[in-house]
């Protein structure tokens, strides 16, 4: 009998906790960059522990200067991310007509892939065939790893300050 009680109480608590987490999830923000990195510390020197995609939602747990500690909803994944990688808007990845309607009249939605997008760039390139984007694509591949930047800082005798690094 006691076992039954315990089991049901546990179940009830799980239900309540789930409901509470849904109710409390009002600090949701969205990743507004191509790739958003979650780090172990509120600094770019913090180790990357997870990488999120454009439009992914995160729940803000804590704020420190220009950094947010966030959790990926319904997971145990959490980490620090710089505020400029986040927006309070909900990013709709494949917007339907209703989303477009809502986005036009409120500031709560942002539409991914709308407006100036790949299609517009494609049309521009078709009209201006002399413009070569090869080096633009190459430049986007110039990404220095965390390890190399740390080495660069160390050997250059540089001293990045905590809050902004």
């Amino acid at each position, binding site marked *: 009998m006691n076992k*039954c*009680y315990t*089991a*049901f*109480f546990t*179940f*009830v608590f799980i*239900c*309540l906790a789930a*409901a509470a987490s*849904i*109710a409390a999830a009002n600090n949701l923000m969205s990743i*507004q*960059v*191509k790739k958003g990195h979650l780090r172990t510390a509120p600094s*770019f020197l913090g180790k990357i522990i997870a990488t999120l995609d*454009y439009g992914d939602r995160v729940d803000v747990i804590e704020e420190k200067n220009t950094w947010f500690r966030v959790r990926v909803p319904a997971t145990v994944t959490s980490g620090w991310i*710089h505020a*400029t990688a986040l927006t309070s808007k909900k990013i709709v990845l494949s917007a*339907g*007509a*209703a*989303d*477009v*309607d809502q*986005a*036009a*009249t409120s500031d709560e939605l942002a539409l991914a892939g*709308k*407006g*100036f*997008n*790949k299609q*517009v*760039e494609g*049309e*521009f390139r078709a009209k201006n065939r*002399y*413009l*070569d*984007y090869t*080096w*633009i694509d190459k*430049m*986007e591949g*110039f*990404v*220095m790893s965390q390890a190399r*930047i740390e080495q*660069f*800082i160390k*050997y*250059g*005798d*540089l*001293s*990045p*300050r905590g809050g*902004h*690094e």
Partner: protein
Amino acid sequence: MSLAFKSGILFLFIALYLLIVLSGCKTMEVITNIGTTIGVATGTIDQARAESIKKSSMAVARSFRDITPEQEYYIGRTVGAVIVNRYKPYNNPEANRYLNLLGQTLARASDLPETFGGYHFLILDSDEINAFAAAGGLIFVTRGMLGNCRNEDALAAVLAHEIAHVQFRHGLQAIKKASITTALTTLALEGAKTFSGQDFANLMGAFEGSIADITATMINNGYSRAFEQQADQAAATILQRVGYDPNGLVDMLRVMQNRLKPGGFDFAKTHPAPASRIEDIQKSIGPYRVINKPASRQSRFMVLGDI
């Protein structure tokens, strides 16, 4: 046993009830969204609605701030393409790698460390003294500009100044309001009816207008003196945050002063005179003092050699 079972069932119902009540709003929102989506798909939203959307989105003050980082990224790519086609890239992997190490280290210390596509740097094969920052973080520096830098702190100052232009979105502010309004209202119309050829043509027109406005400002007219002061000021802050001497900026400007040719189509035309920039920045960083150059920093800077 039977009593315990009954109580258990009761708890279960309470729990379910609470769940439904607490998450109810969200469920209703989803249902409403589905409803309106179906409504629109079946053609409930007519031309009149489309017009009202158009009006309401125009009524809201739309400015460069409404351009999303993703749209900014596409503007920056094309502005970058215009620049790199006009000046030609300097294909030296080692030098470009060094430039990106330095630039990306600095960008992290700016007030806008994260952009949609990130910060990337490229040397341009030109003797002209010039540097450009395309929206979103594509930054270009000519060989001529590198020639003004005698040490890493000075080069860091050049890059930090360009990063600051990205941070303040100075490029986007060169876009005429008409183009921004057209782009954003065309977007608002998209859902109300099938995206017509005319709407896409309007959007393309806004894009072409934006690119033309930005490149004309960057290459021919230059930003306002106020924007340049703001960029120099932020550059000094970025340098200090990373551990560079903000006098690197003064050092670079002093060399530039002797090398700029009056009437040239480069920084001579698009930027305030180096002397006045030095005067402005020294109000906040104080009088010039010689930069301390650690040997390790100076030796890696030499990768630029005789570029």
